[in-house]
């Protein structure tokens, strides 16, 4: 009797050992998800009050391209710079054309004459709405990294992250003024640009707004290049701009509200003209887990917001509820 009991116990122990070893072996295999005690956890900041979400996502369409650079919207179409191609879509996402451009695009905007201005790394080129090259500027310099463009009448504002300056140019690329360089006499603190995210836009009154990404703020300049005002607060909470280089993208609506888009924890928000948070356009949970890039944003005449989602390779359109 005793012998049978001992044998049974030994068999049970043997089975338990085999189970433990196999579980450990299978559980530790590459590709298995295990809890990480050192996890960089920002989940709490991704939760937002749904009452603050002012927009619904109404349309989505794919952009079939390897590399996406930026988006702009006119009253008749959506244009996307995708690597060394220019793509045009109608508002339901049908591709009208895709045409080669002379270099890899870094940013894109449209002017009132429906010309498409595209920033390349060192220079700027202009195309008509059929994708025909109409202008190519000379390169600024080797250090230049053009990250954003805005057009106001006959003036083109060019953000150069490499040289930490905004150029005010005429339509032929002649530099009329350099804006935002550190100048203690004028009270201009200078741009802090840790990475190539350096966006700008023109408001409804014709004033230039430039993101100062290292200071997590937006700065407003007079025509003579002096600093007029600025706003912005750093922070992971919904009112703030999270981490370095945010807001990585922004645009301005007709009523001078700001649409901002952040990297790291992608989220799109709407701020009033004095920098007060009005609400959320796209909360973080609308973006794929592990997606770092800030969607580029554009606004159409009906105040719909267009987000170019670099992770999903989609244009996502948001309309106020």
């Amino acid at each position, binding site marked *: 009797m005793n012998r049978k009991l001992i044998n049974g116990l030994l068999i049970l122990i043997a089975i338990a050992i085999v189970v433990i070893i196999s579980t450990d072996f299978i559980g530790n295999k590459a590709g298995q*998800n295990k809890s990480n*005690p*050192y*996890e960089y956890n*920002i989940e709490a900041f991704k939760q937002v009050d749904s009452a603050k979400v002012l927009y619904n996502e109404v349309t989505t369409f794919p952009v079939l391209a390897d590399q996406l650079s930026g988006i702009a919207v006119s009253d008749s179409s959506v244009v996307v710079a995708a690597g060394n191609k220019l793509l045009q879509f109608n508002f339901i996402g049908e591709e009208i054309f895709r045409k080669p451009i002379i270099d890899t695009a870094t940013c894109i905007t449209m002017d009132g004459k429906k010309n498409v201005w595209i920033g390349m790394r060192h220079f700027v080129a202009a195309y008509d709405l059929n994708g025909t090259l109409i202008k190519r500027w000379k390169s600024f310099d080797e250090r230049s990294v053009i990250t954003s463009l805005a057009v106001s009448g006959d003036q083109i504002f060019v953000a150069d992250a490499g040289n930490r300056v905004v150029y005010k140019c005429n339509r032929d690329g002649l530099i009329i003024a350099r804006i935002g360089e550190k100048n203690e006499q004028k009270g201009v603190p200078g741009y802090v640009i*840790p990475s190539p995210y350096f966006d700008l836009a023109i408001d409804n009154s014709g004033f230039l707004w430039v993101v100062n990404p*290292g200071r997590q703020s937006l700065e407003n300049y007079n025509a003579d290049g002096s600093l007029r005002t600025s706003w912005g607060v750093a922070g992971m*909470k919904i009112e703030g701009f999270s*981490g370095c280089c945010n807001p990585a993208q922004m645009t301005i609506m007709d009523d001078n509200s700001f649409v901002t888009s952040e990297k*790291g924890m992608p989220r799109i928000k709407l701020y009033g003209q004095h920098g007060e948070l009005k609400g959320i356009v796209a909360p973080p949970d609308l973006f794929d887990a592990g997606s770092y890039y800030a969607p580029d944003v554009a606004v159409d005449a009906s105040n719909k917001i267009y987000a170019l989602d670099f992770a999903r390779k989609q244009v996502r359109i948001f309309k106020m509820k």
Partner: protein
Amino acid sequence: MSSKEEPVSHSRRRLIRNGMQVTLAISLIGIAGRTVLKSASDDLVWQLDPFKCVQCGRCAKECVMSPSAVKCVHAYALCGYCDLCGGYLKPDPNARTTAAENQLCPTAAIKRKYIEDPYFEYVIDEKLCIGCGKCVAGCTSFGNGSLHLQVRHDLCRNCNECAIARVCPSEAFSRVPSHKPYLIKGDFKKG
């Protein structure tokens, strides 16, 4: 009558002597060949591709060395020298200071040094670093990704089967030639 045949004992002795000479020659040729081959070929060492790394924390837990032979390294040329550093400060810190409650690193292995307004330099104290990759996750998300993990070869035992490589969820570990043992960001490109 004289016989020209050798005695049997002599013949055996010669056979043994010849056999030993051939064996010795083969051994010498083998050793020489192996030496030449070894000097011509390159040894391989374990390294992780920082572009594949997903900062899962296993480098800190699975390495046979304690603390891990995987350490955070800093590509200074890529660093933005940010005041609000995602790799140094906890998400939403109380203040941008060196106070312990504001630091992300569980072992305070990153040193923050003021350069000029608003720039700060970040230096890794490798003796304190456990290779958890928490700072790498913060820097990759909110910075330029200049902080990244590497196997330090002065610490690595170069095991036949690397304990971390076996469990790495992104298959970031591979053997690389010992004459180029590091995959430092900025020195090589993704893919």
